[in-house]
């Protein structure tokens, strides 16, 4: 098994990975659903933060709690909690983002019995001094919740150490992306997907050892490759649970060279300062990182960011990939499309329900899009 396959294995079997980690090291496992979960603190508390992606298979238990107009992430997540697949979890944390996750938090709290539960009710606007101060308070409260929940003490030193480890992890992930943007033929989109997604599942000290190995492997030219003459694309949206999409894009003549995804660059952008109080530095990172559409920094920050990414990475096009019923992203689509249009960056929208559309249908759409580029 090469190093990329190790990441792939974790992504394909996250629950057995978590159960083994629990059995071997006695780690408490805390699940989370979005990149606003302050996982540095979970790590500092000695527990393992593990991102959950839900399921698209056989959803029926969640249907008695959630309407059909809930997104597949929310429904799939609840299904896994109710069907017992997440029984290994010691708890979950819900940062405040969108309306659907907000209600999932309530329904989860009312219908599951994991020992730890915490709502991290962060500010929605992030561009004022009072909001930044409130973010610091929220981080402090979450730290207290973890301390009492796990009977541990989270010292400043532990937070500083966690911040440092996370900075290193994020820098490595960004390096993987940078390598791909520099030479898209050096690694396939699917393999990049396995690395970044695996990074959200794997035990973080182990991850810190494996990421440089993956980078060396990519640099050595041994990893699965893609052709070099393809149209450079950015994938933008919320979460991507479909490694196949990269293959289909590549078969259609394109290559994803960067993304603005919650399961992508939004996970690693934003360094934690090593100056000052480490908990405050951590809070400030969550106040200043690249936002998701459920947060506010300015009226155009997300569009400007996407336009800048397109320019920096010489992207010819953007594929917006949204989960159906994801309100925050859908609200931003028309203006982001408009900004890209002004900059001459072609774009298309792909709305995904539980599963991807059929291969043939997708290829037809992508090929038509590539012809426009």
């Amino acid at each position, binding site marked *: 098994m090469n190093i990329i396959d190790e990441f792939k294995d974790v992504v394909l079997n996250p629950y057995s990975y978590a159960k083994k980690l629990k059995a071997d090291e006695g780690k408490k496992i805390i699940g989370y659903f979005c990149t606003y979960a302050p996982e540095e603190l979970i790590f500092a508390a000695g527990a393992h933060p593990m991102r959950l992606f839900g399921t698209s298979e056989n959803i029926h238990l969640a249907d008695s*709690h959630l309407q059909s107009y809930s997104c597949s992430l929310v429904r799939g997540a609840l299904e896994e909690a109710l069907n017992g697949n997440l029984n290994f979890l010691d708890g979950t944390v819900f940062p405040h983002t969108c309306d659907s996750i907000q209600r999932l938090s309530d329904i989860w709290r009312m219908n599951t019995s994991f020992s730890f539960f915490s709502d991290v009710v962060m500010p*929605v606007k992030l561009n004022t001094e*009072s909001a930044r*101060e409130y973010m610091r308070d929220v981080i402090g409260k979450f730290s207290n919740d973890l301390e009492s929940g796990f009977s541990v003490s989270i010292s400043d030193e532990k937070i500083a150490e966690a911040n440092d480890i996370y900075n290193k992890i994020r820098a490595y992930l960004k390096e993987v992306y940078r390598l791909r943007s520099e030479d898209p033929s050096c690694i396939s989109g699917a393999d990049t997907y396995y690395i970044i997604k695996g990074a959200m599942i794997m035990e973080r000290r182990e991850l810190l050892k494996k990421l440089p190995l993956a980078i060396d492997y990519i640099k050595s030219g041994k990893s699965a490759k893609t052709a070099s003459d393809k149209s450079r694309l950015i994938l933008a949206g919320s979460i991507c649970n479909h490694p196949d999409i990269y293959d289909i894009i590549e078969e259609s003549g394109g290559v994803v060279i960067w993304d603005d995804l919650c399961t992508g660059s939004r996970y690693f952008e934003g360094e934690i300062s090593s100056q000052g109080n480490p908990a405050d530095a951590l809070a400030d990172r969550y106040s200043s990182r690249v936002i998701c559409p459920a947060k506010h920094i300015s009226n155009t920050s997300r569009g400007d960011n996407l336009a800048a990414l397109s320019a920096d990475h010489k992207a010819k096009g953007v594929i917006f990939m949204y989960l159906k019923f994801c309100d925050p992203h859908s609200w931003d689509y028309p203006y982001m499309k408009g900004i890209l249009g002004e900059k001459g960056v072609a774009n298309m929208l792909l709305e995904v329900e539980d599963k991807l559309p059929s291969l043939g249908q997708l290829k037809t759409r992508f090929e038509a899009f590539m012809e426009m580029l």
Partner: protein
Amino acid sequence: MSGEDKIIDAEKEKRKIKSLGRMKEIMTHYYIDAKTARKNNKKVAWITSGGPVEPLLVMDIIPVYPENYGAMIGASKMGVDLCGVAEGMGYSQDLCSYGRADIGQAETQGGPIGGLPEPDMLICCNNICGTVLKWYEVMARKFKVPLFIFDTPIIHTENSDAARKYVRRQIDEYIIFLEEQCGKKYDYDRMNEVGKLSVESQRLWRDVLATASNKPAPMSAFDAFFHLALIVTLRGTQVCVDYYKGLLAEMEGRVKDGISAVPQEKYRLLWDNLPVWYKTKWLSEKIASHDACLVADTYTSAWSAQVDLLDENDFLESMAEGYTAIYLNIGTDKMAKMVLTMIDKYDVDGVILHSNRSCKPYSLGQYDIQKIIMKERNLPSLIIEADMTDERSFSESQIATRIDAFMELIKDKRGN
């Protein structure tokens, strides 16, 4: 016409709420003022329905509510066309129909009053949903006017001192924002007056709604849906207080005279979520045909339920808590508790929950609330799938069948 018909007409006349004419007058006047604001050198602020309006009144800014207009658009059955305008611009049909309709009216000056007056500023309070943030960002980009976001952290289980402090600080920021927009100092004496009027009108509105706990109920939730307009748009004004005083007196008179909203009230129901604006008449007749009255609802009561948190003598200080703790900004289990309280207060036989595709914070969690109603009160409830303003999400025959079956269940349960 036969003699019998004439008697029925008189019956209907007796049941009509006489204050309604006055309300229409006030709302017409209000919209004329808003539409002519520029001419009169007044500023217009668009504000969300749960937003802190009182400081705008202090500064003599005319508050305009796109959500109120959304309701008017829905009631005028103009929602589909205006939503279609937004969809043509790339907004998904799955997004909130108030938001889509507002985008449509802003683009085309459409809707029953030919479009809302353009805003000089936007005030967005996210205590009702996260959607308003995105919607007001759209408007801030379109009109190129400043957007003030009043961020009220949701209370899943309990409020925190940190959140209280954060919201309190935003009140100061809000005042500074308004001072900058208006180029004048904030008038704290006027704040006291407006605060007192706001609290008084919310108490009156609460008392008006409470008259429906009488049997038979002198008014229904369908009446409340209409009379709500003033507490949303004009709370903090004398005209609002006077109107609700009159309405309260009328309702008390009806109670004394035994005038009921529904001719033969035998069954009493509670409504959850926003109205289905384009079908209120149909729904009201459908429910009345079963001798049932929708006596109360969780929606209209949201503009008074937190009035006890407000201090009329220190409005500014109490506003932070009052605006944070509103019905939609709390956990689903807290919402369920309030539903149970209403079930008891209004002594209802069943609950109809409108599962509203436009409103996720209101609708997600309803299935759990339904289970709690059954467990705690052993009451039947019905979920109907619809949308507040977009008629395309309403299936009349299916909903008629479901309401009929639901009423049969209630009748069987009561044994009469």
